[in-house]
């Protein structure tokens, strides 16, 4: 039986501490240990981008990250976008809604997180910069 490791993370402002196997992916950790099911798994090999979250402000594929690698980090997922007190959507979420920016919504959280990263580092991106950031698999 593999030895478990302690992982302590801040996710969307809440601190969690869990014992996990080293092979547990961050995606599975978020979804099934912390019950934050908004981050979805589309390919489990880092290409489709649906599982994208922010680790310490930088986008990462949670399917290719092990939970143990996130020990001590500050993570942002789609659940952290909506305002907790008022319940209002984050401006990025509202913008997607207004522009009909989703169909089934499965990969939408991945797009939202990369958009969040892009706009936090570059408030006025060019069309080319937006396209680079949004380069993910999408079936519509």
């Amino acid at each position, binding site marked *: 039986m593999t030895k478990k490791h302690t992982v302590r993370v801040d996710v969307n402002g809440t601190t969690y501490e869990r014992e996990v196997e080293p092979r547990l992916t961050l995606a599975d950790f978020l979804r099934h240990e912390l019950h934050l099911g908004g981050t979805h798994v589309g*390919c489990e090999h880092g*290409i489709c981008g649906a599982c994208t979250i922010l680790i310490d402000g930088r986008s990462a594929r949670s399917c290719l990250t092990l939970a143990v690698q996130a020990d001590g980090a500050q993570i942002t997922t789609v659940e952290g976008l909506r305002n907790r007190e008022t319940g209002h959507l984050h401006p990025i979420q509202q913008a997607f809604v207004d522009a*009909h920016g989703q169909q089934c919504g499965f990969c939408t959280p991945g797009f939202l997180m990369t958009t969040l990263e892009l706009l936090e580092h570059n408030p006025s991106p060019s069309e080319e910069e937006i396209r680079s950031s949004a380069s*993910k698999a999408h*079936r*519509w």
Partner: protein
Amino acid sequence: MLGACQLLTEKFSRVVAHLMQTTPDQIELMDGRLRLKANSAVGMTLAEVAGTMLARSDLLPPGIDMNPEAAFVWSGPNRNIPDDQGRCRSYLTAAEATHVVMVEIDRETGRTAILKYCVVDDCGTRLNPAMVAGQLQGGLAQGVGAALFEEYRYSDDGQPLVTTFMDYLIPTIHEVPIAEKGEVVTPSPVTPLGAKGCGEGAIHTTPAVLLNAINDALAPLNLAIHETPASPHRIWKLLHARNT
């Protein structure tokens, strides 16, 4: 949906007519109430009718089905069975579209860049134009994939060679143009609202128009490709086999 609403309105009208001691043709549905045509102040809301049906069976017309709901299955007119050559009136509506594209093939890489993409489609009455545009783009994207990138390959002894997204190439925002779109509307005489199906449209057309454009580009070299996907590798091999 219209059919079910119609049936439900008829059922409710029977109930209200019975309660008001008149006939159903004297009742009309307007602004959420079933009311007397002759005196619009006299009437019942939908909620009141539903409540009466479920709670006061003593007041209902004899033999009526008490459930305040209706189910309806729509079918088209003139249905028939196929003859021995498969001939029959099958699909009810025919949407149509013409796509026009301009592409450029890179001689060094065999990659096809889409320089312009225009679509005019006719899917009859457009019940929700934003949905039509979304479906068109989605079909277009899958059409680009099928025409240029996507393929499941097997070896000569039956082993699959495509098992990850590194082999099965789904187009991204870089490969899929946003088409310039226009519309013509010839409503369908067959469907109640004149709408036609349109959810699959572009994937019917995009591969054809892209291969046509690619072959138009290759025509001066007397080359042609009739295999999909017309991937960079296939086009490159075609170009370089001729040493052009």
